[in-house]
């Protein structure tokens, strides 16, 4: 019963963090980042008048505070209830991450959006969200049933492929954040989309073709594949809406909508790639290791 509620809390925490990613996306897309010039107070108060873009900036701070409190709760609950030491440590790491996010967010305000800090804030947000999803997975009932091992017969090794795909997705997110904060142009992010989508396709199709009967692997691969396809279309829509509204005197709702959706689904893509990598590492037996266990002599080709 205790672990069920811990898992439910982790799921709630993940959803709140996704909402925080959306709130942050709204701040950037509405150019609201500096609408509250002071930090940590807002116009010298805990609650400023929520007029104009102050609604987005201070709203983001309020959601961030909520997620921060939920993170403290998660770290403490894991410490008290979890026997797995690595998971307790992950709880503390997530707390350090959310505190760092708060500091980075404050620095973006105080130092007026220095690009490295804004990009770091965006990237850490994605990593933090993936961590919440991972902890939700680790506290789930399906995880507690243990590993159902399958063999990996292909090349390159599926472990490598899954980790590389997650790495490419994160790199793509970083390129997107860099473009969004005008540190680089859009071309690297568009090029990166081809690479990241290709890697996702590669690992997902490999899993679906060879391990379709494995529930955890199949579901993770299908989720990553479908989320990635949605993300590609949202990226195209975000770019086209930005071009179409380039001359507008203020951020237009259609551009804001598609861009923020692209940011949010980007976070889901990252989390899905992390989940697939975790599932592959857990359930897929490396062929080399298996051969060594059976005492088969290995010779180089």
């Amino acid at each position, binding site marked *: 019963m205790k672990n069920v509620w811990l898992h439910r809390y982790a799921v709630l925490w993940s959803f709140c963090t996704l909402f925080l990613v959306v709130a942050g996306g709204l701040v950037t897309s509405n150019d609201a980042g500096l609408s509250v010039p002071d930090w940590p107070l807002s116009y010298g108060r805990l609650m*400023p008048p929520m*007029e104009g873009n102050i609604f987005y900036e201070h709203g983001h701070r309020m959601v961030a505070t909520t997620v921060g409190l939920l993170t403290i709760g998660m770290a403490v609950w894991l410490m008290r209830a979890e026997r797995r030491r690595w998971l307790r440590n992950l709880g503390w790491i997530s707390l350090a991450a959310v505190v760092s996010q708060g500091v980075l967010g404050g620095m973006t305000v105080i130092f007026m959006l*220095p690009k490295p800090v804004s990009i770091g804030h965006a990237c850490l947000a994605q990593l933090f969200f993936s961590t919440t999803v991972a902890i939700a997975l680790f506290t789930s009932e399906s995880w507690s049933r243990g590993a159902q091992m399958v063999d990996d017969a292909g090349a390159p090794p599926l472990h490598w492929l899954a980790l590389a795909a997650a790495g490419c997705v994160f790199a793509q997110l970083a390129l997107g954040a860099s473009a969004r904060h005008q540190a680089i142009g859009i071309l690297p992010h568009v090029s990166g989309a081809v690479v990241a989508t290709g890697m996702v396709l590669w690992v997902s199709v490999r899993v679906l073709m060879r391990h379709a009967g494995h529930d955890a692997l199949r579901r993770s691969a299908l989720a990553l594949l479908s989320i990635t396809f949605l993300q590609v279309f949202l990226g195209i829509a975000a770019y086209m809406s930005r071009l179409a509204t380039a001359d507008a005197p203020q951020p237009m709702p259609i551009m804001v909508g598609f861009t923020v959706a692209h940011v949010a689904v980007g976070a889901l893509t990252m989390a899905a790639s992390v989940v697939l990598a975790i599932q592959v590492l857990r359930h897929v037996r490396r062929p080399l290791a298996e051969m060594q266990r059976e005492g088969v002599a290995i010779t180089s080709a």
Partner: protein
Amino acid sequence: MNKVLLSCGITCAMLLAGCGGSKPPETAKEEAAAPASAPAAIDEANAATVTGKVSFTGEKPAMRNLDMSANPACARAHAGAPPKSEEVIVNGNGTLKNVFVWVKAGLPDRQWPVTSTPVELAQKGCMYGPHVIGVMANQDIKIINDDPTNHNIHPLPKINQEWNESQPPKGDAKLKKFAREEVMIPVKCNVHPWMRSYIGVVNHPFFAVTGEDGTFTIKGLPPGKYTIEAWHEKYQTKDIEVTVAAKDSKTVDFEFKGV
């Protein structure tokens, strides 16, 4: 726990490395271009005048309505007549409003006395007025909030010190200045993203902004050969050279073409 502390330490180090960017005010002031030689007053007896107008040719662009629904106080200020973007204002006589005209080159190397009268920049109806202003370096800009809502004033200079400050409804006026010549400095309000104005900062008093009739007058010029520049936020810049003698009066007309 050690790993957590190490992570925090690395994060802090990265934060410090990523900090900064804007020059501290002291540095900007120290590097402020202080023209050589003695301070000079305008020689009214021999001063020349350059006048002119800025014409617009081509298709007049349609300016979009501004959506102020995010702040009811702003929307109420324009009830019945939604305001339009001020990016391009073509006057009834075919001239352009809000063009900053200034003497870009040719002035003698001397320090011009800074006007003590501040230039006003008002926030009214959640719009900046005037849309374009000119000031001398180190001349005061008096920023006024006439609205029943908060604003934040956020100039985006490339050379001068960037700053971002809030101003409460009907609050005290702010007096700000820029230390270095910079043409032009965009100003925005992050609370109301449609608000935009531009400030031209120059080291001398020879500048003007076109108004409802699209004309400009620059008085008090010493005799000499000058480059006069006209700047528009959408159509960029055009330069014209003019030579004036003592007590001369010359006409310099600019033309911008719509795209």
